[in-house]
């Protein structure tokens, strides 16, 4: 992972990227996040993993909780979260491009 605000998340690093990517498409509560991530990444996050990552992202100021709607609380991507996600994805894109280029050259 690039040197970003997402460092030090341990096993929650990948779920954190998925959550930030999902929230980049709009505010969502827990269940909507799980469904969206399953749809665009084909990854089914468990509730413990989702909230473990969400709590860490909130503490780092990368997402913010909005007012609860009944028992559901939507979350929003903060400007800092958007910047962290952008940096991470640009780094991942550069790594992906290099890897694919080298694979093409090798075959």
């Amino acid at each position, binding site marked *: 992972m690039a040197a970003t605000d997402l460092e030090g998340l341990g096993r929650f690093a990948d779920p954190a990227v998925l959550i930030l990517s999902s929230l980049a498409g709009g505010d969502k*509560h827990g269940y909507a996040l799980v469904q969206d991530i399953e749809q665009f990444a084909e990854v089914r996050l468990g509730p*413990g*993993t989702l909230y*473990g990552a969400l*709590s*860490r992202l909130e503490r780092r100021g990368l997402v913010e909780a909005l007012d609860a709607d009944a028992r*559901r609380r939507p979350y929003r991507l903060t400007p800092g979260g958007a910047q962290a996600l952008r940096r991470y994805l640009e780094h991942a894109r550069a790594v992906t491009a290099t890897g694919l280029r080298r694979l093409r050259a090798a075959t």
Partner: protein
Amino acid sequence: MSRQSRGRGVIALYPRVWRERYGEELAHLVDSMARTRSRRNRIGLHLDLARGALDAHLETRRHSMNRLLKDSAVRCGGRYGILMGVAVAAVLTFTNVIRPAGPDESDDDPEYLIQILAAYLVIAALFVLIGAAARRRVERADSNRTDSTGRSDLFEARWVGAMAGATAGVVLALAIAITVLVIDNAFFSIISQQHDKRVAFAASGWSSMRAFINFQILRGVFVVPAMIGSLGAVLGGLGGLLARPRTSRAATA
């Protein structure tokens, strides 16, 4: 037991602070996911929750420990504890290695007993001073409206002295343990000649004096920091009490 109550049962494993913040929405998510999952997937869901609870406990403890270690009262006590530890390490090295006592001299001899008691009194006085210094420092920071550096986020002013004293005590105890562990092993040929060590070893029934000495030190590591830390807390608290601003003294009088 219903699916919903099973989910809530696992959520009860999370730390209280965590449950208060996320418990309700997590329970809602678990209920929503359980409705659409097969029995096998629901087991995986509960295992994921249990693992999340363990993570939450570890994270909460880590966060609390980080906050504690960053608090100015703890930092102040830690700095003074390191200074005391260095001084005591120097004294221990000098009296055990550079100028060791004779083979028949004991710590219980009146000459040494007075020196040891004097050292204890100096350390006790230092704990009082540390408590007073820490409280003054925090009170000064509290009165500075433009700069929050040095304020204690975790402790009220009246507890700052006790916290600083306790921290200094624990740091001092660890410094003593490390010093003794190093010199007793590195200079074993000198240390093993000490009267008190020979007597204790003879009465212990151990076959190896080095193993006996190291066992004693390691056993002390579990007891001495708590003892000196408690003593530091009491004396540091006293120092903090003596150092409280005159206005608050008058208010409580």
